[in-house]
């Protein structure tokens, strides 16, 4: 990745940004929670919806657009919201 692209990525506050491991995930730029269930969490980040799939989910903290999610992570999906580019 080019340096300029890395900068753009780091300072982008409109797009979804997900850091994940097998047992935890951190989603940044969360605007609202769309769906919560035991096996998936879907959040709206503005340009995209992000769905984290897995099991035994507990949201350990949500604060200032940052969500910390604990549980067994099995997959992450991005959906483009209709009407948004």
């Amino acid at each position: 990745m080019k340096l300029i692209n890395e900068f753009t990525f780091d300072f982008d506050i409109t797009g979804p940004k997900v850091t994940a491991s097998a047992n935890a995930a951190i989603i940044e730029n969360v605007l609202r929670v769309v769906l919560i269930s035991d096996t998936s969490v879907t959040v709206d980040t503005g340009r995209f919806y992000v769905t984290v799939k897995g099991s035994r989910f507990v949201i350990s903290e949500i604060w200032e657009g940052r969500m910390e999610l604990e549980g067994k992570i099995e997959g992450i999906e991005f959906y483009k919201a209709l009407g948004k580019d």
Partner: protein
Amino acid sequence: MKEKSRESNFIRHWVRIKLEGFKPERIISEAIARGMTIRQIDYKDETEVCMTVAEEDFRVIKKFAKSKYKFTIIDEGGAHPVARKIKAGKMMIAGMAIFLLFFGAQTLFVREINVIGCKSITESSIRECLREEGLYEGSRKNFDCDAIERRLFKEFDNIVWAKVAYEGNYVEVKISESKQVPSDKVGKETPCNIVADQDCYIERILSYTGRSVVAKNDFVKKGDILITGTIPIEHPSYEMGKDDSPEHYVHAAGKIVARVPYYYSFYMEPTDDVKAAAGTMLREWIAENIPESAQILNKDFHFDKKKNIIRVYGTVETRQQVGKEKEIVIDKHKRGTKEDTDRG
């Protein structure tokens, strides 16, 4: 205005709530949009979610959720609830105060004194001595152990070792008595002084062992040392070190002849021959009070006549051998601890 930290909000007062209603995500999203912090969101089913929020945020959430959702407080914590519980529990505070008072009383005062090692000395006399030094059951624990030990040595001649120690509010006084009380009868090898057994004027002094400390014509009182058994050591060639004992002890022996004045006084009834009767009575008094070996040098009479009785008084001067042996108690007043003794 400075914004309150989210952490301090949680420390002050947090609540764990159960949120029940259709689409609980709406409430969570609204709270996020208002900048609230939510922790431990635990999904139960489609209409029920548990979460932890600061108490002041919870009040705001309840307002915007209106009556569409049901909130139940499951648990709460933080400084405010604890303070509230303490404030409500007045009896607990009273109990704690009593406990602290009791604890203070237990630690500040002497509860028990145990005296160990009494043989010939009675425990009550030891306790009396301790009491005079301020150590008794119920006394403050500001007594001076060293002072008490010194007092015990001073008060009781046959205590050779004493130790006062305390642990908590229990005081233990250990003493060790000598096998025999220092007596006037001294063995031939035992270090001793020759002391005057009565008031007298020294006439002649011969010391066989020891060093005479009085001279001819000196007046000495009862108990004064005449020949000492403590001999200073002065090395002619070497300087004595600080740790070296500067003296040694011998069994003092010698012969001391002295003039001893005796004062007498008695009463008699008036008779025809007062002087003869007084002479008879004086002879009886001399037989009772003056040793047979004493040589009578002078005697005088004085009469004090009253109505029906005559007081006879005067002095009898004798020449006689004086002095008795008194044991030297070496290092009696030097304090020794048990540890020192154990080390030998």
